[in-house]
């Protein structure tokens, strides 16, 4: 287990390093940060001065290692637009995004796991068909459009919820629904598949044969085993959700990291964009790292291979 953990940790570090290098290169090669900072109207001399002041005239690799060294110590540079430290800026906005992410993934689980279990207990029944129908529909629904339709119906027609902002818990309801439904179909399908597989296993037949109550068989014996892959999928979906938060937070004007991403992208604020890509991918890397460890711990076959 220790060997597996170390190996997996090394991989995670290598992935993080590669992602940071690619995103750094992508952003800094395809644009001239000096022009972005000085503005379109600046003279050539001004641009040159900024270039030298910030060291943009150095080779890209030198700039990257310089940036990386600082990033390691938590310094992601200064935002061109907000004129503050990028790390402080992201840290401040991340709490809103985390609140949204946790409530959305909770919503998705509460919606999809019971539905998946119910569908698996009676395959091809009405409830199975409804579950399948909902997941097919859900996958085709563009989140930005779903968000707007919710605003039209819940806020404007029924006047139930506030349309935008992040002041009260009510502001989080619609964003939670929009972000959560996105992850629900995948979790539902995997729960259903897992339950179907487990329910046909020999030990379930044994449990039934020795006369255990159906509820005990279902929840204590079957669901526990079926839920193992669901846990790691949920971790992955949670990571993907941060990416989805850009669209959702922009529509509902929820001032989280996703909204910050949109703000900094439209303002050519490269250090902030670069910092956000790093934070978002680190988050995903850490989540999948723990999901893999959990899987290896639960299923010894993984760590031996």
């Amino acid at each position: 287990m220790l060997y597996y953990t170390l190996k997996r940790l090394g991989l995670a570090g290598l992935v993080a390093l590669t992602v940071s290098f690619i995103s750094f290169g992508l952003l800094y090669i395809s644009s001239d940060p000096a022009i972005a900072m000085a503005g379109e109207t600046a003279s050539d001399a001004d641009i040159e001065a900024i270039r030298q002041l910030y060291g943009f005239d150095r080779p890209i690799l030198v700039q990257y290692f310089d940036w990386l060294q600082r990033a390691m110590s938590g310094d992601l540079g200064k935002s061109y637009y907000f004129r503050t430290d990028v790390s402080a800026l992201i840290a401040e906005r991340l709490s809103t995004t985390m609140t949204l992410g946790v409530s959305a993934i909770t919503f998705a689980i509460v919606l999809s796991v019971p539905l998946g279990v119910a569908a698996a207990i009676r395959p091809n029944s009405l409830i199975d068909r409804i579950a399948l129908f909902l997941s097919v529909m859900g996958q085709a629904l563009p989140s930005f459009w779903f968000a707007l339709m919710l605003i039209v119906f819940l806020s404007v027609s029924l006047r139930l919820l506030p349309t935008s902002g992040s002041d009260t818990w009510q502001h989080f309801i619609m964003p939670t629904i929009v972000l959560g439904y996105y992850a629900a179909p995948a979790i539902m399908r995997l729960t259903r598949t897992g339950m179907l597989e487990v329910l046909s296993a020999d030990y379930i037949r044994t449990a039934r044969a020795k006369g255990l109550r159906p509820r005990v068989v279902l929840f204590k014996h079957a669901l526990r085993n079926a839920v193992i892959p669901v846990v790691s999928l949920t971790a992955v979906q949670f990571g993907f959700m941060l990416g989805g938060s850009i669209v959702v937070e922009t529509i509902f004007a929820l001032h989280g990291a996703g909204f910050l991403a949109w703000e900094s992208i439209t303002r050519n604020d490269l250090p902030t964009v670069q910092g956000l890509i790093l934070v978002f991918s680190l988050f995903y890397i850490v989540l999948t790292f723990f999901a893999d460890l959990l899987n290896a711990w639960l299923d010894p076959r993984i760590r031996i291979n």
Partner: protein
Amino acid sequence: MSEIDSEVLESQTKSSAFRRRILGHQGVMIGAAIVLAAVLIALSAPFIAPHDPYYQDLLNRLVPPVWDSRGSWEHILGTDHLGRDYLSRLIYGARISLLIGVGAALISGLIGTVLGVAAGYFGGRVDMVVTFMITVRLSMPVVLVALAVVAIVGGSLQVVIMVLGFLLWDRFAVVMRSSTLQIRSMDYVAAAQAVGCSTTRILTTEIMPNVVNNLIVIATLEIAHAIILEAALSFLGLGVQPPLPSWGLMVSEGKDMMLFEPWLITIPGVALFLLVLAINLLGDGARDITAPENRN
């Protein structure tokens, strides 16, 4: 009955059974009908669109659709905030969605297939490198990276296709790798190697024909994925640029007036939803038919 006859008969019943499976699959039939309609509409857009999708008639702005009491048959789906005919824009929008979906899937399919097949066939170091590349790709937030690149390079149809093509190859690579791994251990591949076939020949005549079904399924689902992402990028103003009639852009342009004229966002949204739903139904159905064992 001679041996040859029974072989012919068997292959006939096989293909007719296959046809019956397609025709009996509701999802595939519905999906195929909608996709076919969308493709025909996109191809014949200049002939069936009632108006020029770019012509602005500022005196006839925000005319509601025909089912509204203020609507008219002149503009069946009404006009937008610049007086452009909504139906014509919707028809031309189908071209953009399909072009981006197919274009992005072609690029990502090529990248993913080359990487996946190489990893599955050669294994060892090649596999390690490709698996690492997939992990790196999955760790990068797609929407964020796509938005950032489009913002820097500038939005256009070609840029969006390229960006999505270079970002969405992960699922192709994962599936092609595992399918190739499976085929690679078959006896006929070993036989081909034993008679001294070149690697190129084994890859093209033994491996590819056997993984192509899975490739088609993933390609279909990735087309839908790319279409939905393009709409989201354009909606955020960092995808296809005005005045092109992208459906995502139409929703974006209508959203300021959605409280008074909700049809402005309902119509392009429903079109987008239907197209993506149909493509997904087709892809899911194709998997049920070609590989029923992978259904779940």
